[in-house]
């Protein structure tokens, strides 16, 4: 019955917009997607709203989203930081670590991925296997020997042990880009070679533009993974003035005394902003992939 009633309503629209049923579908799409997004977001909202509650109220009123009283002092308090270090310092440290790591990981990974995907050389299978295997050993057991290596080089209490390894490629990103490159028709390479491009020229002029979506994806992941990375800063950074956000957030909490939950939630929200921003900026490159890869 309903369907019958709705169809005539859609008719006049069809006359005006000249796209039958389009709007109806569109609204359904937005309704479903939007509602679903909201459901997914409930926990985030909870986090956001908790940041406006008093520390002692966060759990007492956990079931309610509406802060009562609504306070914003958590943000001021959290921003003051801990033991004389402003939260700005922690954000600055995170940005340095994450910025360099991301640039290093994306550039080196794309080079390596091209080597694996397009060039057939002796020992390729072996090195590829090495790369995969290096991801399969739990970090807990390699962490002590690694720590000793960095101690020997004299890199402890600096950003170097966290940043530098990223410049030698990241297995996840390498494999990701390999998969994307292998999906690019080889004819493009050959056309470029006929035009006189060398290996690097093919990589730079043909492949790189085509794997922008994969690179954007890698950049988003790298940024976020390094942003939330806790274990490496815990191991390698000793001085509080070098702590990144992930480590600093935990300084608000203690199981034996009253914790500053409000400040922790407030600063969690603040520390989400750069990650969201980066995501929003880079996800457009994933979309734009459509125009470039359409050139087949």
């Amino acid at each position, binding site marked *: 019955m309903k369907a019958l009633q709705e169809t005539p309503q859609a008719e006049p629209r069809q006359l005006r917009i000249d796209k039958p049923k389009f709007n109806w579908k569109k609204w359904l799409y937005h309704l479903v997607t939007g509602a679903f997004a909201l459901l997914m977001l409930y926990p985030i909202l909870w986090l956001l709203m908790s940041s406006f509650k008093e*520390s*002692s109220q*966060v*759990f*007492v009123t*956990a079931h309610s989203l509406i802060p009562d009283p609504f306070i914003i002092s958590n943000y001021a308090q959290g921003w003051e930081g*801990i*033991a*004389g270090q402003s939260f700005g310092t922690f954000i600055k440290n995170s940005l340095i670590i994450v910025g360099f790591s991301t640039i290093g990981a994306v550039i080196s990974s794309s080079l390596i991925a091209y080597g694996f995907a397009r060039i057939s050389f002796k020992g390729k299978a072996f090195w590829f296997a090495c790369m995969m295997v290096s991801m399969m050993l739990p970090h807990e057991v390699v*962490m*002590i*020997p690694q*720590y*000793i290596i960095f*101690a*020997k080089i*004299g*890199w*402890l*209490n*600096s950003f170097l042990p966290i940043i530098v390894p990223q410049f030698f490629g990241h297995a996840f990103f390498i494999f990701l880009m390999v998969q994307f490159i292998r999906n690019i028709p080889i004819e493009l390479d050959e056309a470029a070679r006929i035009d006189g491009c060398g290996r690097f020229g093919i990589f730079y002029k043909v492949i790189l533009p085509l794997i922008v979506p994969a690179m954007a994806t890698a950049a988003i992941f790298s940024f976020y993974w390094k942003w939330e990375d*806790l*274990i490496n800063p*815990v*191991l390698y950074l*000793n*001085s*509080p003035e070098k702590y990144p956000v992930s*480590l600093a957030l*935990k*300084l*608000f*909490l*203690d*199981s*034996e*005394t*009253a*914790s*500053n*939950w409000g*400040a922790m939630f407030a600063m969690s929200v603040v520390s989400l902003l750069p990650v969201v921003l980066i995501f929003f900026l880079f996800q457009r490159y994933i979309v734009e992939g459509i125009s470039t890869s359409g050139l087949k």
Partner: protein
Amino acid sequence: MKKVVLSLSSLMLAAGLAGCGNDSSSGTSGETKEGSSNEEITLRVAWWGGQPRHDYTMKVIEMYEKEHPNVNIEAEFANWDDYWKKLAPMAAANQLPDIIQMDTAYLSQYGEKGQLEDLTPYTKDGTINVENIDETTLKGGNIGDKMYGFNMGSNVLSVITNDDMLKQAGVELNSENWTWDDFEKAAIDVQKATGKYGTNPMNPPDVFFPYYLRTQGERFYKEDGTGLAYKDDQLFVDFFERQVRLIKAEAFPTPDVSAQVKGLEDDFIVKGNAAMTWNYSNQYLGFAQLTDAPLTLNLPPEQAENKALFLRPSMFFSVPKSSQHKEEAAKFIDFFTNDVEANKLIKGDRGVPVSSEIIDALKPELTEDELKIFEYVESASETASPADPPDPLGSAEVMKALKDISDQILFEKISPEEGAKKFRKQADEILSRNA
């Protein structure tokens, strides 16, 4: 192949274990020897805790630096979890800070494996002034005759009560000489009258079961740490049967309920969900800040007869063997322990101070709640007997086994009798390695 691998890896480890101390990134001026007090030196000090502790400890450090202009202190702090993750690789690579905050649970691991310096000489020669510290308290961090940790403060077990809820249930506690049965009855009465839990879950069991044993004149670990001291499994059965009865009466939370507590802020007593809570005395302050209900610190049941209570070292300061500045480190510990102005900032955060002089000097400075804790510890120390020695090697495993078995009993997957046997078997297996 095996040989190559073997030598390569032992080389690696040897490199790590043997004197990395010199290329420590802390900027310690490598060659500096202890003693001459005018040389510029850098001390690394590490501790765990929450924000208030980080804040005031930094201020204490500033005070120290002002008095000792040649000493530059680098603070390294983290919360409990991260702290121990940091410390283990540091120890493996000989990179430990000069002063490390230490817990009883880890003291024998770090001490007996040769990481920590014996501090006894520094207390003997007066570098650390121990005149006002009671002998038993001072030796709280001793393993055998080696002082691997300098005791920073004392906590005492307590039962904190919400007096409104007790009144509502018509329960009157005589905390000087109440029995375990009184406790059980009180918990059930509260449940009947209010519908809430009578008590918090007495979790973790490795704190409260040993206390129960002490009230029965028994001990948990053998003195030398090679096995369980108590012989009669009926003690284990009695302890857990009481909890099972309380759970059946809905007066005691099941383990899943207690696992949902996220912090002091939603603890049973704070949210008014339980009338009694088993805790160390220092937690009273947090509870009192977070709830408006009238709270009292009570001595736990049956403490008097067998002198079951003890002063538990809240934490220690330890100095690693690898430190280049042991004497300076000891001086800092002395300052932390004996300086009145510094302790006006520290107050009871690291347990009630060990120096009687400091306690007297602090009393006028304390808030009402802080004073209650100090007085409670004082009154308890009158009937207390010496604490058990620091947990033996392997205690972390024993504690985990006890927790697992306790959960199985409280979820009624196994009977207390089965649990008792299972626990003895596992604990003996673990501890026999120390023999």
